[in-house]
């Protein structure tokens, strides 16, 4: 009988890249940014479009993303996957690609995202339009932020978590961003700054919310055999898992426990690792509460204790756990669906190519994506040759 553990170490990330980030201007489309990131990731991998036979993408800006991208890039893949689980899609794509490569359905997988939401609209561009009735929008909920605000309020109620502890997450992200030259926000940020900024949906202020930027990212994944002949040190896929509990926040069974509890436990089991083995953690921080929930659900601290865990700069540079070392969606880059950037940063840290923000002796990285409104949770564990 097949066992998913056979995927451990059988594929590796061999190329990563960002497109131009920040605000690219009105003439550059989401497709342009996606294609730019794809080209740079292939350059990084020492491969060309002729090598790619698996194409993976999701987009809020163009339909049939892999078909559109295939035409633009000049790739005619024999394996195509546009799985849409919101911001977690790209972590889902990594797991699907690892399985497809192992099964011989493709050999070189290119995973791509691009968005010009800041230049195009100045606001969040939703993953797709919905034609089914909403039981939330008519009440004036400011979605998605109100969904996360409701989770934050419940977490504060149940565990005594404070707004200051939420703010610690934003301040830590800014500290890391100040070490990343391509991060969008570089200015100093204090807890008082976060608490005193405009309230969007209580208890979350605008500084508890992710940025609205342009940007794209791409990843090349291939077999471990082929990876060893390529220029970059392979970043091996060790395990990955997907879980979901709901789409709409009013359908979430427990607002203080996400499906990351399942995805994290399964990914660690498949990788044969535990949270204390992880050197860097990259989680989708759409809002400050996300980081608290994911640190608990992924097993880095007990349920209800994340507020204390992040206090006093616990996840900032120099803290006890490096989290979102690129500055995250809160301070580095957030072009709508951030998931791919968790993978790019984890890979760079494992390669030792993260510049001033490099965490010494990084061998294992965790990337975690969130999609919808705490709805879809996908965890991927990556590592260098020493952990095979």
């Amino acid at each position: 009988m097949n066992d998913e553990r056979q995927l451990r170490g059988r594929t590796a990330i061999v190329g990563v890249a960002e497109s131009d980030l920040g605000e690219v201007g009105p003439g550059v489309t989401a497709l342009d940014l996606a294609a730019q990131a794809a080209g740079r990731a292939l350059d990084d991998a020492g491969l060309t479009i002729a090598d790619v036979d698996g194409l993976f993408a999701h987009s809020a800006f163009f339909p049939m993303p892999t078909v559109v991208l295939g035409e633009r890039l000049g790739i005619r893949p024999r394996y195509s996957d546009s799985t849409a689980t919101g911001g977690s899609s790209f972590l889902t794509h990594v797991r699907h690609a690892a399985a497809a490569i192992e099964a011989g359905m493709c050999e070189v997988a290119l995973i791509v995202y691009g968005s010009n939401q800041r230049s195009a609209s100045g606001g969040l561009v939703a993953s797709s339009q919905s034609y089914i009735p909403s039981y939330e929008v008519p009440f004036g909920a400011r979605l998605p932020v109100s969904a996360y605000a409701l989770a934050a309020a419940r977490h504060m109620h149940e565990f005594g978590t404070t707004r200051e502890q939420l703010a610690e997450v934003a301040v830590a992200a800014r500290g890391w961003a100040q070490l990343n030259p391509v991060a969008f926000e570089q200015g100093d940020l204090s807890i008082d700054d976060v608490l005193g900024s405009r309230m969007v949906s209580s208890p979350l202020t605008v500084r508890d919310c992710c940025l609205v930027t342009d940007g794209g990212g791409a990843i090349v994944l291939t077999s471990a055999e082929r990876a060893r002949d390529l220029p970059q040190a392979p970043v091996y896929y060790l395990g990955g898992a997907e879980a979901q509990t709901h789409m709409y926040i009013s359908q979430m069974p427990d607002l203080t426990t996400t499906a990351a509890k399942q995805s994290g436990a399964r990914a660690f089991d498949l990788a044969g690792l535990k949270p204390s083995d992880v050197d860097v953690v990259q989680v989708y921080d759409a809002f400050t509460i996300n980081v608290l929930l994911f640190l608990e659900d992924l097993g880095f601290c007990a349920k209800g204790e994340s507020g204390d865990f992040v206090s006093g700069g616990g996840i900032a540079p120099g803290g006890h756990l490096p989290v979102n070392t690129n500055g995250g969606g809160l301070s580095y880059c957030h072009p709508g669906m951030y998931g791919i950037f968790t993978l790019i940063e984890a890979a760079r840290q494992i390669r030792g190519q993260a510049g001033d923000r490099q965490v010494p002796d990084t061998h294992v990285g965790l990337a975690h994506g969130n999609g919808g409104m705490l709805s879809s949770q996908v965890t991927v564990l990556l590592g260098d040759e020493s952990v095979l």
Partner: protein
Amino acid sequence: MTPDLPGTALPADLTDTPTSQGGPHPAYQALLAQDVLGFQACGACGRAVFSPRERCSHCGADALSWRASAGRGTIYSTSVITPRDKPAYAVVLVDLDEGYRMMSRIVDAEAASVRIDDRVEVRFVAAGDEVLPMFTPDGGPR
């Protein structure tokens, strides 16, 4: 054996019953238009289901029927939204006594005074062509 269902049977004097509607959502709206907070209950597992749907999402059975909620519940979470040009309002998740949860909005109370665990009761509020179930504090024990 048929389980006991949460809620009560629909009022007998309804002029427009769900069975005359085309799908779960219009049925729900038709009940709201008659000041009935409807929800579905499963004849197989006995559990409440919301939002309206075709089959039970607890057990998968094709055995849903419409029931009437008493419209009373407890606030599970709340968030205050302050628009630039309008008064602040509280968006809430309400746990209805019949065993299901819905999003709603607080009316006839200060948004900032709304607390988790507050008891609330339904108010039917006209909004354009439809009626929305909103909630107000019922003054009961916190």
